[in-house]
């Protein structure tokens, strides 16, 4: 199953998130992530959806979403022509003696240390989902206490961009 990404501009109104998420749930689409954020235009929000499915299902999801009145624009983002990023915040147990190992990992992955106590450390990493996945795997042996991922945010590269006026 392939990974697909959709970027949508939707009306920034109450009920829109629930219409979109309800549609996805009702039709049984299994999405990897959905993120919603503000845009430079206060009338619109941006939704980014990551889905693993076959091509035909993907076309169906795209068509179902596109026909919602509140969806002003929708484009498929390709890995090759987009910047796809996710944020991870992860807390692991960390005794003093392993700090050097953690620092090494943080350096390799270009992660940041945002909080540290006697028994735990919180790290922050931004990047592609696969990079986050591998960072998590590397940290797993130390004991993950909690973690939070933002879901995918994405923009097209270059001059093209998803704006209402396009």
């Amino acid at each position: 199953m392939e990974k697909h990404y959709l970027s949508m501009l939707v009306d920034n109104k109450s009920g829109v998130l629930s219409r979109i998420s309800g549609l996805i749930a009702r039709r049984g689409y299994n999405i990897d992530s959905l993120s919603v954020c503000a845009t430079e235009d206060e009338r619109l929000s941006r939704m980014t959806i990551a889905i693993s499915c076959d091509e035909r299902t993907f076309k169906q999801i795209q068509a179902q979403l596109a026909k919602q009145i509140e969806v002003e624009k929708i484009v498929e983002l390709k890995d090759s022509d987009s910047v796809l990023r996710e944020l991870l915040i992860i807390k692991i147990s960390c005794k003093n003696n392993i700090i050097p190992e953690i620092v090494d990992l943080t350096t390799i992955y270009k992660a940041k240390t945002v909080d540290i106590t006697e028994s735990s450390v919180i790290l922050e990493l931004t990047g592609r989902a696969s990079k986050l996945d591998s960072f998590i795997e590397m940290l797993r042996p130390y004991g993950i206490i909690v973690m939070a991922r933002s879901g995918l945010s994405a923009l097209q590269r270059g001059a093209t961009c998803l704006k209402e006026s396009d």
Partner: protein
Amino acid sequence: MKETTGAKLIVETLASLGMKKIFGYTGNYILPVFDAIKDSSIEVFVPSSELGGAHSADGYARATDEVGVVITTSGPGATNLVTGIATAYMDSVPILAITANVPRKKLGKDSFQEVDITGIVTPITKYSHIITSVDELEYEIKKAYALASSGRKGPVLLDIPYDVLNEKVCIKNVEYSLPKAIVPDKNAIDKAIALLNEAVNPIILVGGGAKDASKEISLLAEKLSCPIVTTMRGVGAVDSANLLGVVGYSAPYSNNTQFKKADVVLALGTRFSDKMYAKSKGKKYIHVDIDLAELDKIVETNSAILGDVKDVLPLLLNGVKARNLDKKFTRGALKKNRLTTLASTIAELDLTDVIVATDVGSHQIALLNALGAKNHKELLSSTGLGTMGYGLPASIGASIATGKHVLLFTSDGSFNMNFNEISTAVKYGVDLTVVIANNRSLGMIEDIQRNKFNARYIGIDTPDISYALLAKSMGAQGARLTLPKAQETLQKALTERGVKIYEVRI
């Protein structure tokens, strides 16, 4: 710019959109709108329940192709609409529901008769929106109206807090502009033409989205010398000698056999409901639909054409080669029994200028299969949701909309659900002939229990009601008919005024 109130603005905007007749049921929070109607050109028709109002708005819309409007108060008034809205949604019928809600400062506090109706109806509307400022009211009404009646039609709902109805506002005569009409893709059309020209046994499958293209469909079928079949929703859409009838689970065997034999299916305005679609290998599909999300949803197509059937068919007609085969088309029929005999009797009446309606169950299947190769564009039947009790209020709406006589074929189970609307029909002087095929049972369910549950019957008996007395108690006429007498009595009834309710024991 004229200053007015939110409530008056609603009424004036509806009037400016051409609405003359709407359906509505009153209650505390919608009162400002009812009050504004008093001084307007709009007439409000009051059903026995909001559900009746919603179905009437649906019947109004199916009979006229215009938007049916229903207004209700908050809370239970709004929730009573739900089945009616879902019925319209499943059959792509344009209705505009306007509900009142509690004042804005009480929203979200579980106030008396507060309900999140826009949330409740989200999955069964094209658009639902709660007004948060009186300034967006005019635009939102025009937007909702336009959305309901364009593209793939469907229900929309606007919820308006009570204080917004009383607020001062200026009418700005704003416009809502619709997206551009779709231009069918030339490549897909060419591909479809090639497929049809290579076909050995082509067949045309007609759905509800093809109701405006009766002439083009029959011309195309003649040119291709091919049969036409319809979905349940497509019944009445075409008038053609090539029409076999319905296909699917409730269709005659011979129609399904013909469908199976086809190598190329030209599917027009259908969503391939699970009731009709029997997957058969080795077929090629050309699918024309106005809703992109329907293309390739159920069947994989060889040519998917996004567009209005009415616009696409002339292009296909131009391109296909005439086959001039000397073929005869035999309409399929269901097994003969008392119910199908009564249905045929009704289908064979002179129904010129009469709108036909059904309820839901075996009688519906019988009539939809029996209706001849005649155009019944305004046919009222809940095929997508299969809503029992739809028939009577929908008939009232259709008759109020058109002034035409409506013939409703129902059965006791369905009729018992909403017979409180007989009094509505009488009150508004509609011309309505009701035939109740009374089998003292929920017939369709009885059949299922017989076949799938070893004849272990439960929950299917219906009460013994004297429908003649019931009719009389509400000011209508009523009588029991025998099957042999039905033809003569019913034909006469269709030329007479008023509400007549006939019970035929099946």
